């Protein structure tokens, strides 16, 4: 006890060390440890998982997808750990033994403006950050970087086949998709029958192919190789066979492929295919 200016006795708080040594203090310490450990584990998982389980990164879009997963994991890890910590605290602190008679009602909750305002502000800032980040990354899949002239590819889905035509390179068509490395590509996606979904797992592209509607999506391949093209929308009997390959070639090889298919390489593509 201490004495205030009017001579009244005011209860004093025990020292921090003494409070931490009490049963309630030990519980709070335990909650803190749970939060810190879980945050660390979730962060480690968020950093490890995208590269361990997602496909190879073959485009700038897939790179953005993995970055988004990483950033969202970092932002979400402490929140999730805090929720688990509060859950742990609640289960331990409010637990009644088998011999105890539970109270008819719990103690009334007292409002804390500091906690309420803090919670709302932190949640709002975090949510706004994720929203802006997400919209920014989403916009990047439909916005082309200045510079190289994009390659336009018309993607047509039908049960149960993809066909690809190159309207600015002679208008030829192919059942396989071939792209040049490091040149932006604009996919104009549509369907002749039912709804399909044009999915390039390694390039982070997945967009619905709707009949009578053309949907545009863009990316820039960044890795040479052969990757998958799949339909990601259940579309009928042979849906599981509606897949083919996308080959990413360097500029001269892509131009040769265009020529071999009866097309004319677009020589006006600034910084484009011919530069490899």
């Amino acid at each position, binding site marked *: 006890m201490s004495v205030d200016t009017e001579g009244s006795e005011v209860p004093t708080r025990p020292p921090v060390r003494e409070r931490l040594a009490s049963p309630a203090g030990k519980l709070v310490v335990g909650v803190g440890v749970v939060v810190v450990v879980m945050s660390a584990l979730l962060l480690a998982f968020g950093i490890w998982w995208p590269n361990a389980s997602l496909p190879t990164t073959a485009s700038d879009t897939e790179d953005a997808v993995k970055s988004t997963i990483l950033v969202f994991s970092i932002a979400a890890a402490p929140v999730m750990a805090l929720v688990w910590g509060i859950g742990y605290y609640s289960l331990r602190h409010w637990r009644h033994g088998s011999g105890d008679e539970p109270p008819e009602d719990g103690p009334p909750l007292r409002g804390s403006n500091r906690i309420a305002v803090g919670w709302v502000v932190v949640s709002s800032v975090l949510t706004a950050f994720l929203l802006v980040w997400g919209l920014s990354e989403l916009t990047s899949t439909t916005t082309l970087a200045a510079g190289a002239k994009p390659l336009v590819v018309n993607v*047509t889905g*039908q*049960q*149960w*086949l993809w*066909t690809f*035509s190159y309207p600015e390179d002679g208008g030829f*068509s192919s*059942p*396989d998709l071939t792209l040049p490395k490091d040149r932006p590509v604009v996919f104009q996606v549509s369907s*002749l*029958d*039912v709804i399909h979904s044009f999915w390039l797992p390694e390039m982070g592209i997945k967009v619905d192919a709707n*009949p009578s509607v053309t949907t545009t999506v863009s990316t820039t391949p960044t890795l040479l190789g*052969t990757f*998958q093209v799949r339909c990601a929308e259940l579309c*009928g*009997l*042979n849906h599981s*066979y*509606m*897949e*083919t*390959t996308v080959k990413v070639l360097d500029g001269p090889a892509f131009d040769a492929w265009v020529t071999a298919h009866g097309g004319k390489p677009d020589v006006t593509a600034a910084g484009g295919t011919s530069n490899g």
Partner: protein
Amino acid sequence: MNTLVGAVGTVAVGAVVVGAAALVLHSAPTEPPLLTATVTANSSSTPGVTSEASLELATYGDSSQITWRRTNGGQGPHDWVSYGPTTNLQVPSHSLVTVTIQQYDSGEPIPNTFLATVQGTVGGTMTVDGKTVSQVDSESIGHTFTVHNYPSSTQDPLYINVPLPAVSDDEAEAADAAGRLTKPHVITFQFVTGSAGTYAWNCEFPCGDGTYAKFGDAMSSYGYMSGTLHVV
């Protein structure tokens, strides 16, 4: 005691339901009869090819023309458009396969004109009634024979698309006294197989009922306008 009886009864009823479902599924038809290509030569002048074989198919506007569907083994509706005599095909590996298709059905414009071109065959061509062509009129297609070249690390790529030109409505109905159709387009083409593998093939011309973009009935039921190509 009642709880125990209830629990045991529930498990027993569940087991009976699961067992009945398994029995029904097990007895359901799986593959149509297998049609094995006839080996016509055990050597070939084509590089990388060790044998030659032939396969004969047909397309009908009415699957009652197909023997196995009319007999006891023929499950499913008998009046749908269909490939025949079956859609379960087997050809030898590393082989030059000659396919002959009797095309008895009428047709319409094909939605994707790309599929009116011949692809994946020897020389990129086929013959229609003896005439060599690399594409047909996209406004009058009966069906296509299209083998899917889906990515696989365990089998060789194989993509084939052969458009089958439509016969006229009169020709599609021309039949002899026994009801057998008599005025087909005869299409022949050749392709070369690689190593052993299993491929899906189907008709890419929407020729089913009109329920859903003409992809109902025969187009959405296995064994009519779709099948399996086994390379062995």
